[in-house]
């Protein structure tokens, strides 16, 4: 799990910095106050789900940085679409880094606002970050 956490962190940094111009600082294992969640399931040699959790302000920053929209111009759909794409890109990037030779099937990302109440067990990998006072989290749950 330690190695997986390292790979997951590299995937998160790669996607949010390159695509959304957001810079994150790890804040340990403390669950913060998140406004929304996008989740994506994957299956292949490994099976599981990755959830991305973000605060309202960070979601708005990502939409702004990606699409150039100001807060008053962006719709709920813009925010949902953007957060779902973050989850899609991070999950794909993570699985590619895990093993470039394996093929995984990814589901369509789902969106929940507020986030679902999912208990993260010992088979899960959790990473939490701060970005200028806004929150970003990622939870990986393996199911086999």
């Amino acid at each position, binding site marked *: 799990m330690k190695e997986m956490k390292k790979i997951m962190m590299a995937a998160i940094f790669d996607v949010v910095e390159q695509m959304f111009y957001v810079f994150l600082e790890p804040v340990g294992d403390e669950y913060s106050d998140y406004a929304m969640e996008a989740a994506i399931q994957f299956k292949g040699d490994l099976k599981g789900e990755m959830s991305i959790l973000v605060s309202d302000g960070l979601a708005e920053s990502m939409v702004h940085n990606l699409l150039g929209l100001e807060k008053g111009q962006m719709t709920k*759909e813009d925010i949902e679409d953007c957060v779902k794409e973050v989850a899609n890109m991070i999950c794909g990037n993570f699985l590619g880094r895990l093993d470039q030779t394996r093929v995984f099937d990814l589901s369509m990302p789902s969106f929940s606002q507020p986030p679902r109440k999912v208990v993260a067990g010992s088979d899960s990998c959790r990473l939490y970050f701060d970005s200028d006072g806004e929150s970003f989290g990622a939870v990986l749950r393996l199911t086999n």
Partner: protein
Amino acid sequence: MSFNVLIVDDSKSVRSVIKKIITISGFRMDQCYEAVNGKQALEILSKARVDVILSDLNMPEMNGLEMLAAIKADSRLQGIPVIIISTEGSDEKRKAVLEMGAKQFIKKPFSPEHVRKVLYEVIGMEDEEIHERNEKDNDGSDF
């Protein structure tokens, strides 16, 4: 050189970003069609002249691989270059996509520079063909 592009992705954000990259890259784009999945893309292709397709793989209803197979099986469409842009970047997937006839594979997240470079390569390779099509379609109407 001007051309018609079809962007296929279920994410509106990604379609907007790709469109913006093409626009700011100095390409002369006549028409930019957008589709949310392969099925909608094929509907557009049945009515409009498209010179290059940029498509995601993981989409609802009809995914990018199914769309690519349909395009390659259609003699009227098989010459249109398809660039796949996807998060699913394993060596196996990439190989399968290129073997099926895609011209290039871009992995998400992508940089504008990389998309631009690939597009220049693909459009450059197809330059003559696009020109011929433009000539042929001068009297025709677009979608």
